């Protein structure tokens, strides 16, 4: 049985603030365990968003994408995303919008409602740990996600 809610974070845990996506998912899974009223939630991570992740959205009611972002205002921003034909088809930086578009085309239907939680990060070098600013952003983003869960 597919969980109706998917939380999908991506990033490289060993590249400084790029770890925000997978770290968020780790913390959120612990948070969700304390909130049975949220129902079943599946938490997934990967190094980066890719075409096959369109298949992870099958059968969901809502999806929350989570990534580190240089451009997002601190601590984070939550925005609704819809399928779009953009130019992010580098394998390196496929956008959530583009993945939704792939879903719509291969499934011949609309993807479930999706949001992007972009957590502000600053440093992304190999071998670096999470910056202090990112650590604070991570805590704030968990509250934003909890509100998102509550207001379904």
């Amino acid at each position: 049985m597919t969980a109706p809610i998917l939380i999908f974070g991506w990033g490289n845990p060993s590249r400084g603030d790029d770890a925000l996506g997978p770290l968020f998912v780790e913390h959120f899974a612990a948070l969700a365990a304390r909130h049975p009223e949220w129902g079943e939630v599946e938490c997934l991570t990967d190094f980066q968003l890719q075409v096959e992740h369109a298949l992870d959205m099958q059968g969901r009611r809502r999806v929350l994408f989570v990534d580190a972002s240089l451009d997002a205002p601190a601590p984070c921003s939550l925005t609704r995303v819809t399928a779009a034909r953009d130019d992010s088809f580098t394998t390196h930086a496929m956008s959530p919008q583009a993945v939704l578009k792939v879903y719509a085309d291969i499934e011949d239907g609309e993807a479930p409602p999706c949001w992007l939680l972009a957590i502000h990060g600053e440093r992304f070098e190999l071998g670096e740990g999470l910056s202090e600013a990112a650590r604070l952003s991570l805590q704030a983003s968990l509250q934003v996600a909890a509100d998102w869960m509550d207001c379904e």
Partner: protein
Amino acid sequence: MSVELETAISPEKLRRVAIDPVSRVEGHGKVTILLDDDNKVHQVRLHIVEFRGFEKFIQGRPYWEVPVMVQRLCGICPVSHHLAASKALDMMLGVKQLTPTAEKIRRLMHAGQILQSHALHFFHLASPDLLFGFGSDMAQRNIVGVVAAHPEPAKKGVLLRKYGQEVIRMTAGKRVHGTGAIPGGVNKSLAPEERAELLKEIYQIVAWSRDAVGMIRQLFEQNLPEYNAFGRFRSAGMCLVAADGAMDLYHGGLRARDADGKDLFDHFNYGRYWEVIAEEVKPWSYMKFPFFKSLGAEDGSYRVGPLTRVTQCDSIPTPLADREREEFIAFDGGSVTGATLGYHWARMIEMLHAAETIKDLLHDDDIIGHDLMATGQRQERGVGVIEAPRGTLIHHYRVDENDLVIRANLIVSTTHNNQAMNTAVREVAKQYLDGVAITEGLLNHIEIAIRAFDPCLSCATHALGQMPLEVAIVGADGTVLDAATRDQRGLIRDFS
């Protein structure tokens, strides 16, 4: 390989076009082209951000952590680093032969990696150029355009990649950061229900992989003169082969041939790779330029990866892929075996081989065995080599008496191909850019030549907003004459 167009005689008098970063390749690359007032090309260079920091990242860690940690060097082929590191540390532990279960589980994981990587590259990175044309509308020339115009192959590409990822998940234990391979063996075999799950789809996967070979062959038949001439150059090559000369992507000896196909070395023990390979540094690139010592730095560069592997092996040990190899080599009198775009065809033959390998291994009871580890006498050094999706990957470690890594040296596939990629883009620049006005479509020809090698430029950082494409034309006095920026929303400003 020629170094023509590597360095212009009077660069200060030329204007500069930069493609920065190259799109639809893994990581960050930059191409600079120097043109005179008549748009004649004088210099072309591909600059790649080197894998700096690798050694520092690994040094000082306990050796048993390394196969897991190295997966974080690169978000694109973590399994290749995982397996190469594990093989190096097998040697360091003095393990000369893995248990049958351990070796077959690793081979299964590797085949999953080859399948998913080649599927992604062909269907989602290369096919937009091949299906719509090299200079076609940029708005269409991407995977969404492919899905819209050719939904079936695009969907197969997604499902092939997904299947490969499932093979990796079941053999490595996790979807990402798997721990399946460990020094001396593996820490899990396949559960019978996992095997049954994978068996359900494997025949479809083999059939789709075969279709993909047919698709690229058809594209060559339709565009043979252009494909054969595109970025063509003569080159030496290197790959692993099995003891009988057959293709073996997981283990074997090194085989190198010069541009005329003559053996330079064969079945060479990769544990002494430094006796046959050296690396040259050039002041304009962070990435080193490996070469065969016997030919010297100037003449000794070579290429690795699918095209070399398919053309240099004596056979492929799975029947469908071997038949396709024979047809590839015989096609048009063998002309495609020297074509840069022949990489695509060879890559699909390897994808078929990977699918057949998965099928065969799933029918082998050793993959559900329980004898997972072997032991040996501890050494202080270990070298592991595999044929990663993009080519030969070398991991070399020294470990001290406290089990800490004190030295690490990695030569990755894209570094082996550094000179080859530079030569390919120079050939394309001569063919398509010389003396004509530069357009986005023409610059895409340069990127197509690079993408044929499927370079992995080692940057798993992908935070939103970090991947713009900037092109600037700079006058002889340093003035920016025109500029275009392409970000995730598309091309903002064009050349016209």
